[in-house]
């Protein structure tokens, strides 16, 4: 029973979500929130692999998202859509439906290889110095894209919507929703399997004492390479999904701000806690959406009470003041995050009776 409860729950969730979106009971806005929740879960749990379990401080996660987003978008548009850069589609657009998971995976693999860019310096470098390298990697990736005119450069790249439309023309289902749910579940499941195996625990050994890890036969360089590649590969898949949801990407959306968002989610959830990452990604997405309403309210209240001059209006830009502020408050008052390094089943041991997740 407990062996099947999680797969059953996930299947029910998927069916309910698809039914709701097909029948129109769930409007596009709610649907987009759910999609972004899934993407944020992938981003936070994959970054947690490096920042939480391995104890490194990588703050350029958006770079790998960008690689995945650009690779899968250009592949999809090149193969299946009429585009001003690439001309007519190479393959009949009906096939997009079947190729979508492979294109997504190709984006992930490309991002995993981009992950080598920070994995190799990490062999010799740790801590703050590695953090600087990851920031540099983020800038390298975004400025490379800005300077590539063939994929739109700074103006961005679009055409992914056309691919999505031809997918739902073939079989009328909310495909992007289905793939977001599947990728999210697969990500959590892969990371869970990795970190709970004795092999994967090698990265926790590195985080706790790298010298002891190396002397007790853990091939630290190989483990770091695997962890960085897995983490950035999953971020690449998240990026690919993100690009297809929005239908438009530009290098600006994969800057240091996006990386900060990922960091906030990891530290909010708790380092080395997979359930923490999931919970914090959900809360964070909801919080961002709430701010969309709350900021105008605050604006109205402040104008009403004459705290702000009539000429000034609080805009959504304030979101980017509030999010880093959360990080500051978190580090001050609860540095271990919501869950610390515990999992949900450690806090509620009785849950173990109902599910096993491996």
């Amino acid at each position: 029973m407990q062996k099947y409860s999680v797969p059953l729950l996930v299947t029910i969730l998927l069916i309910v979500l698809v039914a709701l979106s097909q029948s129109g009971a769930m409007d596009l806005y709610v649907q987009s929130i759910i999609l972004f929740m899934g993407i944020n879960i992938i981003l936070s749990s994959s970054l947690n692999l490096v920042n939480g379990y391995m104890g490194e401080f990588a703050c350029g996660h958006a770079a790998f998202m960008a690689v995945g987003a650009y690779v899968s978008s250009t592949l999809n548009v090149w193969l299946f859509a009429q585009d001003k850069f690439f001309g007519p589609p190479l393959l009949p657009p009906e096939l997009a439906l079947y190729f979508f998971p492979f294109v997504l995976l190709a984006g992930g693999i490309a991002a995993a290889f981009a992950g080598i860019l920070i994995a190799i310096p990490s062999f010799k470098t740790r801590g703050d110095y590695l953090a600087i390298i990851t920031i540099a990697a983020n800038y390298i990736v975004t400025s490379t894209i800005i300077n590539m005119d063939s994929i739109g450069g700074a103006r961005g790249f679009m055409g992914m919507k056309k691919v999505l439309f031809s997918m739902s023309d073939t079989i009328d289902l909310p495909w992007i929703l289905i793939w977001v749910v599947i990728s999210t579940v697969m990500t959590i499941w892969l990371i869970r399997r990795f970190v709970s195996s004795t092999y994967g625990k090698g990265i926790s050994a590195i985080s706790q004492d790298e010298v002891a890890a190396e002397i007790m036969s853990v091939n630290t360089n190989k483990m770091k390479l695997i962890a960085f590649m897995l983490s950035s590969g999953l971020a690449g898949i998240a990026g690919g999904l993100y690009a297809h949801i929005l239908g438009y990407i530009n290098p600006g959306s994969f800057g240091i701000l996006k990386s900060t968002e990922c960091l906030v989610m990891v530290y909010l959830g708790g380092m080395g806690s997979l359930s923490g990452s999931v919970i914090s990604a959900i809360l964070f997405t909801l919080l961002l959406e709430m701010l969309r309403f709350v900021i105008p309210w605050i604006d109205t209240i402040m104008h009403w009470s004459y705290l702000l001059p009539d000429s000034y209006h609080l805009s959504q830009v304030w979101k980017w003041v509030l999010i880093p502020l959360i990080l500051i408050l978190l580090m001050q008052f609860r540095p271990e995050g919501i869950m610390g390094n515990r999992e949900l089943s450690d806090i509620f041991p009785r849950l173990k009776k109902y599910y096993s997740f491996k």
Partner: protein
Amino acid sequence: MALLEIKELTQLFGGLCAVSDFSVALESGELVGLIGPNGAGKTTMFNLVSGFYKPTQGSITFKGHPITGLKPHEITALGVARTFQNIRLWNDMTVLENICVSQHYNMGYSIVDALLRTKRYLKNEKRIYTEAMEILEALDLARYAHEVPPNLPYGLQRKVEIARALSIKPSLLLLDEPAAGLNSADVQDLIKLIQRIHKEFDITIWMIEHQMTVVMTLCSRLKVIDFGSTIADGTPDEIQNNPDVIKAYLGDDTI
């Protein structure tokens, strides 16, 4: 053929000569001590053997293979285990996990097996678990298997570290000051433990130690170094009366 053979080893850190022209040959089954005043280069010696430093000059051969230039984890996989002067257990893992993770040299499965939970993965995880429990039982640590090291007293943490080193089935065990920070009762236990593992596990032990009771009871042969060079070599009794050793430890009386 000697198990470990070090020939004319020299290690320079910039202008500082940490080890100079050091040679030793350990025969299989020996229990040898390495002593010397603080800063003599003893731990540097161990770091060279275990592969953390690449020697400036000289050669180290283990079971006939040259091991200079190999990575520490490769040397460990060949059968050289060591403990540290300050205990270096992984403190967020249980004692059992500490032992299991040390089996990385012999996992028997790859990352793909771990992600797909293949039969090979399940079989090897089970083997690693049973072998780890065996080693814990052999050292009477089985009841602490699910404790995290910081909850154990210092003496037991040392014992766990020795168990972890033994878990890789080494033929050479390097002990870096195993008695450091232990009280006299713990030291007696440690002496018994080392004698036992030396006999039962049939391994060669090379130890650095400052406490004379420990080295005098355990070691059949001692090597004394000071400022990186060997000043004496012989049985514990010979060493005790060697004027050079007394000078190195107590200083020269001609000021």
